[in-house]
């Protein structure tokens, strides 16, 4: 016997349609009961006679599954055979899913290979979850899968615990590439989602004495952030550490997350670390002061730093804006605002300094655009931004490359600062006067007086202070980089080479580094894109752009107005002439403005995205996993059962078939093939044989097989 079993859904549909379309013993019409009685007159086992009529399928007659019989007498004499049972006729959705199920793909299981006692099928008394576990463990050893953990709890009657199907799926168990030890990326994506579906459900976790915060805390680590942004296959998911079956609490020495076993567990992915590397917390709650004091205080410190910096500079910004705006309006009213005219150009930045700043702009934007999306992994824009950089792994390469460029700039600046303090030939002489001198970026007492003077000016209590070459906010910008490089560069290095740094620090420092890196990044981005942008470009008398960092030149009048002390000093020292430069060409000025404005707009757009996300996150506080466990929590109930129409299998709308419109040919009841009419008989299109008519159908003269007449209308 050579059964062609089709995997193709189209053929399945045709098959089913055909099975439904062939009227079962059409003349004379019989009721389901009458048909059943006919079947039972021969098939009278206890299983069919009694148990079937107590089963879930009892309202379906025998022939609603076992179709294809047209003549009971011929069937009884063995001339007519049954069509294959097609469960998908009623359970169409499951049948569709099942074509991708591992049991079909790998072991070629059919419905009744699991649903063995189909004629005695009942609603399980034990409840859905227990029955699933019992069924799966018929083949998958209970010793291996349900000795501890979820499986054991299900068998103990814990309604919320996960049965096999809650994690693996029921009829859609995916086929993953084989992997021993650690999961394949595809499996990681699938299973971590499943864990989080329940463990992120606050109500369910609370009921069971667990905390949904674990998921939130995991999502705040590097592993969790990368997962949330769409690259779950690349990082450790739940099962990579907790294993998949027989999950035990960390206190149990057999648990994979027991401190004794952590080196092996982490070692599945991380190599070459000092044993204290495993002191890393995979999901710490840094809000919990008792359990994680270091992380708590690190977070508090970083939050306080952000708050104080922005508290000062944003107030400074608003006040300055008001004052400068009013001032500008007044000058315009009084006609004192001088129109731009040809004037002498004084150099402010050398070519080297300008190039350094442009390189800085590129590296800073790269860092922000590849790093900040991880911090705000929940938002859609983060996913888009990461996609623009080619996904998390490639964005990571960009991030590290930009970090190296920034570090090189930083080190070069340090070298230039040393050269400034200790110029060649002068040795140590006079370095203190240079350090606190007017050309130095080091803060001094005059800066404190200037801050006071600025605030007095903001409130119309005095004149704007007279500045020398560097103002106090410019000095802050410069020194913020020193602090920032230590904080963000140091923590970044630890996160880049966590295994190496375990030889220097214990593993929990990685947790602290995550917090510092993340918060310092926010500080840097927000500070540059709001305070630095305003102070240097957006302040009303410079709006929208101060191009001197790109052109390197200030007008003489601008120098006199903004930095009178420097002007007077240059005049007194007779150095002004040597700093005079020719005016730049139109093309260079245009290019400078375009580049500057584009950078400004990009920065402001990023600030908008960040602030919008922070505000909307605070508005919708609940985060973490979904609220949609596979089976409704609370009881040992099965998922809602669709109601199937008994007896009559639904006939799907048939696709256009080659024999559409014919009503004369014949059908091979075993294969479903259609034999078109030819004269009074029919032709087997495959072999070309002619089958003459015989009674209601046709006869194969060679084998004597009977083929019933095909009539979609059913009227004969």
């Amino acid at each position, binding site marked *: 016997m050579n059964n062609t079993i*089709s995997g193709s859904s189209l053929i399945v549909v045709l098959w089913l349609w055909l099975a439904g379309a062939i009227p079962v013993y059409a003349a004379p019409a019989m009721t389901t009961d009458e048909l059943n009685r006919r079947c039972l007159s021969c098939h009278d086992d206890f299983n069919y006679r009694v148990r079937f009529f107590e089963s879930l399928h009892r309202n379906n007659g025998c022939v609603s599954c076992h179709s294809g019989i047209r003549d009971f007498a011929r069937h009884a004499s063995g001339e007519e055979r049954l069509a294959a049972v097609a469960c998908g006729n009623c359970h169409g959705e499951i049948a569709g899913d099942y*074509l991708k199920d591992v049991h079909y793909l790998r072991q070629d299981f059919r419905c009744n290979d699991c649903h063995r006692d189909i004629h005695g099928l009942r609603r399980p008394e034990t409840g859905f979850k227990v029955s699933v576990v019992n069924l799966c463990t018929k*083949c998958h050893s209970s010793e291996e899968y349900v000795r501890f953990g979820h499986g054991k709890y299900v068998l103990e009657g814990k309604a919320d615990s996960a049965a096999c199907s809650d994690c693996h799926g029921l009829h859609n168990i995916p086929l993953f590439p084989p992997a021993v030890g650690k999961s394949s990326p595809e499996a990681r994506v699938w299973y971590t989602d499943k864990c989080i579906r329940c463990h992120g459900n606050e109500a369910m976790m609370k009921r069971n004495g667990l905390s949904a915060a674990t998921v939130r805390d995991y999502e705040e680590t590097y592993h969790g952030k990368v997962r949330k942004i769409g690259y779950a296959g690349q990082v450790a998911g739940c099962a990579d550490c907790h294993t998949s079956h027989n999950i035990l609490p960390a206190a149990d020495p057999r648990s994979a997350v027991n401190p004794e076993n952590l080196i092996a567990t982490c070692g599945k992915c991380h190599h070459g670390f000092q044993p204290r590397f495993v002191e890393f917390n995979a999901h710490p709650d840094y809000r919990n002061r008792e359990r994680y004091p270091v992380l708590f205080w690190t977070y508090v410190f970083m939050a306080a730093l952000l708050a104080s910096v922005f508290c000062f500079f944003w107030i400074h910004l608003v006040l300055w804006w008001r004052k400068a705006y009013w001032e500008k309006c007044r000058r315009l009213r009084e006609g004192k605002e001088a129109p731009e005219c040809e004037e002498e150009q004084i150099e402010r930045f050398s070519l080297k300094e300008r190039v350094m700043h442009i390189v800085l702009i590129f590296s800073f934007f790269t860092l922000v655009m590849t790093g900040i999306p991880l911090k705000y992994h929940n938002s859609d824009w983060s996913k888009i931004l990461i996609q623009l950089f080619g996904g998390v792994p490639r964005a990571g390469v960009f991030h590290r490359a930009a970090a190296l460029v920034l570090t090189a700039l930083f080190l070069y600046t340090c070298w230039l600062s040393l050269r400034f303090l200790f110029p060649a030939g002068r040795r140590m002489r006079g370095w203190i006067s240079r350090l606190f001198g007017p050309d130095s970026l080091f803060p001094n007492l005059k800066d404190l007086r200037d801050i006071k003077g600025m605030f007095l000016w903001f409130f119309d209590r005095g004149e704007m202070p007279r500045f020398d070459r560097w103002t106090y906010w410019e000095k802050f910008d410069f020194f913020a980089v020193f602090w920032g490089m230590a904080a963000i560069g140091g923590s970044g290095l630890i996160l880049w080479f966590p295994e190496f740094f375990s030889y220097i620090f214990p593993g929990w420092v990685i947790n602290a580094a995550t917090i510092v890196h993340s918060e310092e990044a926010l500080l840097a981005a927000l500070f540059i894109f709001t305070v630095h942008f305003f102070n240097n470009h957006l302040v009303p008398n410079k709006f929208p752009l101060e191009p001197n960092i790109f052109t390197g030149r200030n007008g003489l009048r601008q120098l006199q107005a903004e930095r009178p002390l420097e002007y007077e000093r240059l005049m007194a020292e007779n150095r002004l002439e040597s700093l005079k430069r020719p005016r730049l060409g139109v093309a260079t000025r245009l290019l400078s403005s375009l580049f500057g404005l584009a950078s400004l707009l990009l920065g402001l757009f990023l600030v908008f995205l960040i602030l919008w996300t922070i505000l909307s996150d605070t508005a919708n506080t609940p985060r973490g996993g979904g609220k949609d466990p596979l089976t409704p929590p609370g009881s040992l109930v099965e998922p809602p059962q669709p109601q199937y129409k008994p007896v009559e299998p639904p006939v799907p709308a048939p696709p256009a078939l080659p024999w559409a419109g014919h009503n004369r040919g014949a059908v091979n009841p075993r294969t479903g093939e259609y034999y078109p009419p030819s004269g009074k008989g029919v032709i087997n299109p495959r072999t070309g044989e002619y089958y003459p008519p015989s009674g209601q159908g046709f006869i194969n003269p060679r084998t004597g097989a009977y083929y019933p007449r095909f009539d979609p209308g059913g009227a004969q």
Partner: protein
Amino acid sequence: MRIKTATPVFLILAVLLAPAQGAGPDVTVVGPAALHKMMQQKNTVVVDLMSRIECMDHRIAGSLCIACEEFAEKAPRRLREKKARVVVLYCDGESCDCKAAVESLQKGYPGVYMLKGGLSSWKQAGYATESEVRVPRAAIESIDPDSLGKLLGEKSGPLIVDIRSEASFKEGHIPGAANIPFYRLQERYQEIPLDRRIIVVDERGSRSYLAASYLAEKGFEDVNWLTGGMEKWNARLCAGKVKVSDHRVSGSE
């Protein structure tokens, strides 16, 4: 000067590219859709490299059953009979270790292909299979390597039936295991004692269930199959959970 600097670059390139050229042409891999298209043409012959039991159970419609181990011996004649010009080979799902046999074939045929992802990917793509003698699937419980390790220590331990090829068995096996390769199971299952507990072991745990079902059909009542096959068994030894001397994978002497 320029030539001098270029020479080492060429040398390095030559060294880097050498292994790729020296290894000989690899078997071309085709996906299910491409195979389906190839099958429409005459002279394309598809060969199932798995055991006869698996091949008869279900296979790509119209394919020949020639087990990998017997390939070199049987394939040339059967392919000649079929007037094959293009040959496509497949296994269960993962790559088969059937390279030597496949390479022996390459000389005589213009096209020798391997189905990517094997039979599973064919089914996953929605194409048909045919079944000649289906092995009834039995409810046969698996056993995990740890439990098997414990059983091996006991006095009346089970008989391990290793269904991998003779070559793989020679490379290493569980001590005391009997080697009845899957492709010969139907001829040799009578050698297995009926009164002992049987554990069927394969490469990765994907074929032993069907072999166990076959044995169950033949009247063996106490059969189990090892989860994850020898791969998981070996991983357990490597993980250091067990002293290697206890359950050493022994080579055959």
